[in-house]
């Protein structure tokens, strides 16, 4: 079954690059995405944040060719452009996706479902899948009869069993219990460390993103409103509470909400000495960016 040559695509190519993507559902409905651009560097874990209905799911579905919503712009995966990526076997062997709601296979048992999907991949890591199954205490029952959290675990197994180089996760953890969430996030970090897997993770749980991600991207009004390394945000961004807007060049002010201002390098003397500078909480920053 291994008749496909390995690694046709260059390993170091940018896993995912999106430029000027526009998307919307139906001819008359408003745009969901407008001029959406982002580029993921290999080996990074990017947390995609956005309010409900802001289009996080649409981004993933358009990129993977799972919907017809894309209107304009270009998507490049591992340096391969223009065509829906699923047409090429060597691309789809390197991509994994966990949808927001895993539906389907209701009458299949977990084992049969895993066997069915794994038979289609060139490389399937049975050890990894078995180990996670054991740790997650996933019983071999019909998928339709599993509680939603367990169903989500099946979806995750189906998406990471072939050890993809690019993994896209659409709110994978919101229905997992804390123990399973920890196991899953640990497995994700492990995969990322082992093989430099690139991850795009949409989630509402900002604490998980803070714990896990190297970069964050905030999606607001159809665009990326903020895309930065999390370390950078932690180290260089400070929050100042001011009564009047600070007399600063616009590129210094990152975001504002009411009388709170997120300022790059606040300690370099650009602010009066008596202003108290706080550290940044990701959840607050998210609320500030998306309140505009």
């Amino acid at each position, binding site marked *: 079954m291994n008749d496909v040559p390995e690694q046709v695509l260059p390993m170091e190519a940018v896993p995912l690059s999106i430029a000027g993507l526009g998307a919307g559902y139906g001819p008359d409905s408003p745009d969901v995405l407008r001029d959406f651009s982002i580029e993921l560097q290999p080996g990074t874990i990017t947390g995609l944040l956005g309010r409900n209905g802001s289009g996080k799911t649409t981004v993933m579905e358009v990129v993977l060719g799972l919907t*017809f919503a894309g209107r304009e712009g270009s998507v490049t995966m591992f340096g391969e452009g223009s065509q829906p990526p699923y047409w090429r076997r060597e691309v789809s062997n390197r991509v*994994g996706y966990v949808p927001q709601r895993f539906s389907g296979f209701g009458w299949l048992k977990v084992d049969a479902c895993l066997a069915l999907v794994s*038979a289609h991949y060139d490389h399937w890591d049975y050890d990894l899948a078995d180990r996670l199954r054991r740790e997650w205490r996933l019983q071999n029952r019909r998928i339709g009869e599993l509680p939603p959290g367990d169903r989500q675990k099946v979806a995750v197994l189906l998406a990471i069993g072939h050890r993809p180089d690019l993994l896209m996760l659409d709110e994978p953890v919101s229905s997992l219990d804390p123990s399973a969430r920890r196991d899953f996030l640990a497995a994700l970090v492990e995969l990322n460390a082992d093989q430099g897997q690139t991850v795009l993770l949409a989630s509402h749980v900002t604490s998980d993103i803070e714990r896990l991600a190297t970069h964050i991207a905030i999606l607001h009004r159809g665009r990326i409103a903020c895309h930065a390394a999390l370390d950078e945000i932690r180290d260089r961004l400070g929050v100042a509470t001011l009564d009047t807007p600070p007399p600063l060049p616009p590129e210094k002010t990152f975001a504002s909400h009411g009388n709170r201002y997120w300022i790059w390098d606040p300690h370099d003397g650009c602010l009066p000495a008596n202003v108290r500078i706080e550290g940044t909480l990701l959840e607050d920053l998210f609320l500030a960016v998306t309140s505009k």
Partner: protein
Amino acid sequence: MRSAVVLRAVLGRWWQLVCFLPFVIYVVVLGGPAVANGIAVWLMGIAGWIAGVFAKDLGNWPNRPLVPGYSKTLFQMVLVCLLLIPLACGSLWTALGNPPPPFGPGLLWGTIMTLCVVRTAVSPAVLATNLAGIIGLGFYLIWAAKQAMHPVVFESLTDWRLQFPALALAALALFHIWRRLNAPLRATTRNFEAEGREPLYTKLYGLIAGLRARVWREVVVTLPLVALALLLVLLVRTGITTYHVWIVFVLACLVYSLARVVVRLATIHVPLRLLWLSGAAETRRSLGRECALAILMLGFGWLPAGLVGAAILALGMHQAAQFDGVLLVAFTTLLMIALFVGTGRRIPSTKGSLQLLAVGVFCGGLTITLIHGIELGWADRSAMVLVLAGLAVATWWAVARALARAEIVQ
């Protein structure tokens, strides 16, 4: 290895195959040559429907286009279902000493059924309508064939002048199935609007989605029945007796009701839960009565339509025919109510398998009654109607009771 896991997955739905089996055996073994010609076509339709359901079930998850070669597997499975099952049945039939059945029209219908099931959004109503269509039309064919009213129709089915164009059209349909299996899934609610890429679908879905009032929805759902009535009127002009036309129309109405009831049963926990939690139902017993009534009204809502239509068609008809009609209605009532009780008891898990099994039993029972009940004498018929009516009342009481005791899960 891949075919083994697919087979294992498909066999998880063995009951879907099993519920049609007794019926198929019955007609293959007992039917005459004319039936066989009709059956071959009908069997292909069933095979196509099963293939479509399998392909849909296995393909109905968002990641489908992402898994390498997955769509190809599904397509291979469809081909196996469409070709191997009818070939086996056809060979058996021919081995019994009969002329070879009409594969061309059969395959065409089979592929069209597959396409219908694969193309539809997941809406169970549409699936049920497909099912109703296949059963209704199948009955019509069997019925017409049994009466051997127009042997020329069935002889022409095996004519090469029909076979070849039919095969060519079937190939076209297969190509569309292949394309559909490779396209993104349209099941997710958001993708529903993306049908806008195809102009015909925009209009169709726009029409259905735009009809807000329930009345209009019902009217739209009636349209296929109206179309069938028109078709039958045309057939009357070609010489088929009014009596058979009448039977077919009532049958279609009943089958349609049945499909709608099955759909309603699959989602019964929604009204049950609402009525219970909001305190609108005072007690468990009133909850059961109200919901049973609602479902029955919906299910039998088509009966008056069928009967009125039948009355128009049956003007000046022979009295025996009216009696057969009563028999039919009573029999269907019983089966429907048995279906309610069967599903009502299983509400905790609402097993689709049971529903379909009940549909299979219903098909078999109804066909056998149709084929043999006609020859019964007056006294037998009266006794049968009485017994059935009594049973119907008893089971009606059981529905409300089953619903009242049901646990509302899902």
